[in-house]
């Protein structure tokens, strides 16, 4: 059997030139990998924010006990704390939206 015959036999395969199902599966895997990567990117910021809040909690508590904010003031302080916790996620979402 000569090289040309062998080559012709080996070159024969039934794979399509384009395979949307295969591409979709790959791109889903890529999206999953990117999502995990972004979570890992965010993790240090979230951990830092949590640690900072934990460190500052006693001072914040003393301050809140000493000063009477009233209902509106207390709600504002609570909102600021929640917003500072959500900020990294918001920034990430904004970044992704502007890159689309």
């Amino acid at each position: 059997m000569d090289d040309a015959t062998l080559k012709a036999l080996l070159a024969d395969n039934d794979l399509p030139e384009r395979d949307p199902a295969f591409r979709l599966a790959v791109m889903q895997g890529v999206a999953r990998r990117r999502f995990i990567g972004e979570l890992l990117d965010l993790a240090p910021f979230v951990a830092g924010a949590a640690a900072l809040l934990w460190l500052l909690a006693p001072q914040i508590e003393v301050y809140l006990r000493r000063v009477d904010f009233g209902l509106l003031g207390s709600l504002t302080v609570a909102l600021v704390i929640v917003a500072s916790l959500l900020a990294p996620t918001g920034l990430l979402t904004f970044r992704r939206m502007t890159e689309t």
Partner: protein
Amino acid sequence: MRGSEAAFARLVDRHQRALRAFLRRACAGDHALADDLAQETFIAAWGRLHAWRGEASFRSWLCAIGWRKCADARRGAGRSQRRDADWLQSQDLERGEGASPDARLAVERALAALPPEQRAAVALCLAADFSHAEAAVVLGSPLGTVKSHVTRGKARLAELLGAAHG
């Protein structure tokens, strides 16, 4: 990021056939495993795009990642699992898998009978038109070794296919 994903999807379209064909041959005809490895290869390539410096073609770089994954899968699989898979594969081949021509089945059987490195070298140099140098990069082997694998693989294939046709 989205733009680069669209560009990467085009790369998947362009190279999926070559990579899957190579891995199917390297995996001794185990199409399901080969396609899984091809998907993993593309996903790994996405994560390492910065590492591709253009010294080798993108297709060679992909095949090199795929070949390493194939070797890992081979090492990871137990001896009995391989025996089972081989047996199942041989049953599929004997049933003829629908309209597949006899010649293709004979080639798949003959390829499966080669040692993995010889099989991969033959799949690259004979079936996919890689140069020996490119195949050496993909397989991570010295050029002389690849040439030797191709020569021996071709001879063994011709022998097996000659016997099958004779």
